[in-house]
């Protein structure tokens, strides 16, 4: 059951959400970590940490480093693996009155397929988000998302196997994001989310060493918002598929920028670390904005940027 004020409700790929605010993969764990901090049912939905076939221990520390108005991370897809996810993490998520989107990652196309097949048999999942854009693992992840052909093949294989609507999560680390967006749409993606993190690095000049053990990592936070916004705008304009925008969203105004640029929904990532209540503050903020401006439905605002 999903409740909420109807002027904020949105429907994408046949799934109805009480509001357009999701929390982003990797920044909200399996939901349970934030249970004591606010009523999770107020969220439009929760996107889980990326789930792989086997449990992964992730990269050695340091895995995070703060940079100007942002942060680098190289977690290395540390997660419990699909079996333990289903047994230990999904029951809690299912108990919440919000939508559950499981993010899937893999090193090979067949790993993505296998994870999806196992998730098919579980109840309580509303959608899958396919991470073809993680910059922090050697194989898979970004290797799929950075090339048009492999992005197409991965999403095509997942589409064939998934009983759920799928969101393709795109990487900004490409020459032409519109081309990749076209490819995953053609492969059967029901929606597109963007952006994942931008490849970045930081150096300790005293020790002459990289500040992340993985040397490079993914940049997120307010620093990447302008990049994310431009990409959302380009993709939303060019491709007829619902777009979920993310990258540096910290408050209601940021969320509105993405919506005006063409995002049907938004995700809050790094901001959860700064203020765990960011997402529900945005839900309230969007509601207030609609009331103040006499907007009947938030969906009326999607893509309403006056750019001519």
């Amino acid at each position, binding site marked *: 059951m999903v409740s909420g004020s109807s002027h904020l409700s949105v429907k994408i790929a046949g799934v109805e959400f009480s509001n357009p605010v999701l929390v982003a993969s990797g920044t909200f764990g399996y939901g349970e970590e934030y249970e004591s901090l606010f009523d999770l049912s107020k969220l439009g939905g929760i996107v889980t940490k990326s789930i792989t076939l086997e449990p992964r*221990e992730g990269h050695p*520390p*340091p895995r*995070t480093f*703060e940079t100007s108005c942002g942060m680098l991370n190289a977690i290395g897809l540390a997660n419990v693996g699909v079996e333990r996810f289903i047994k230990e993490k999904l029951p809690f998520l299912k108990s919440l009155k919000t939508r559950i989107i499981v993010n899937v990652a893999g090193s090979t196309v067949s790993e993505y397929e296998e994870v999806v097949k196992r998730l098919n048999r579980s109840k309580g999942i509303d959608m899958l988000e396919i991470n073809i854009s993680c910059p922090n693992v050697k194989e898979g992840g970004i290797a799929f998302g950075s090339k048009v052909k492999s992005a197409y093949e991965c999403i095509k294989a997942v589409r064939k196997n998934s009983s759920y609507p799928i969101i393709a999560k795109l990487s900004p680390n490409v020459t032409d994001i519109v081309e990749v967006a076209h490819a995953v749409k053609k492969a059967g993606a029901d929606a597109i989310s963007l952006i994942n993190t931008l490849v970045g690095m930081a150096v300790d000049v005293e020790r002459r060493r990289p500040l992340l053990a993985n040397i490079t990592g993914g940049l997120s936070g307010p620093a990447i918002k302008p990049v994310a916004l431009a990409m959302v705008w380009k993709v939303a304009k060019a491709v007829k598929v619902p777009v979920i925008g993310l990258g540096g969203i910290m408050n209601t105004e940021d969320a509105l920028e993405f919506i005006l640029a063409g995002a049907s929904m938004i995700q809050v990532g790094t901001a959860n*670390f700064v203020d*765990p209540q960011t997402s529900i503050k945005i839900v309230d903020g969007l509601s207030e904005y609609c009331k103040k401006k006499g907007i009947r439905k938030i969906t009326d605002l999607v893509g309403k940027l006056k750019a001519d």
Partner: protein
Amino acid sequence: MISQFTSSVVSNQKLGEKIFKLTLSSPYISKRAKPGNFVHIKVGSTYSPLLRRAFSVHNVDKQKGSFEVLLKVVGRGTGILSEKSPGDILDLLGPIGKGFSLPQEGKTVMLVAGGMGIAPLWFLLNNLIGKTDKEKLLFFSGAKTEKELLYCENLKDLGANLMVTTDDGSFGTKGLITDLFLKEIKGRKNDSSKLMVYSCGPPEMLKRMSEISKGYDLSCQISLEGNMACGVGACWGCPVKLENGWYKRVCVDGPVFDAREVVLE
């Protein structure tokens, strides 16, 4: 249970070179925090610094409904916090983490602090005094110089059981606190199973404490630090490697770990 709340600064006291003690009002923390827990503080409202900063609970005053953090200025976040005045409001998450488990009766307790490592151990010590036999309580305190030694006056009440080193010899024994600790352990080799050790300090020191604990199979709990993002166990950004090759999160699986269980680089 971790909670998010605002807290006002009661006082800000300069204790030494770049070292400050902030007293914050919070009945919640003063009642619930256990030695070894920490709070995650939002430093300001701008995007730089962006992430929260972690500080051990340094002491609590249940009557007044307040608690203390001891902080050393090492960068922008700690710099901003060091300039807070009474009445300023801070946004906090806490109490976070698994704290120290208290010693069983009859054990000899050793607290080994290096520099700012005294922050969580001071809270622990205040919990032990009165409960643990004074003869069976030893405090090791090490710092770079005399100026960076904290609470020597207060600790003197412990009598002969206070052992101090400074790197430059400006106070106490010249050398590292871990060397003095090792000497003590060697002298007690036969009753090492009767010891409970607690330690906090800079990374190199805790690495040494971990080696010593493994070597002598000591029950030793160390409080770790590390770059931290969420502070609530969600992001897996603050891992510590375990002997079995897997990782645990410093924030919610720690920050206190058995020194024999972890692999510190």
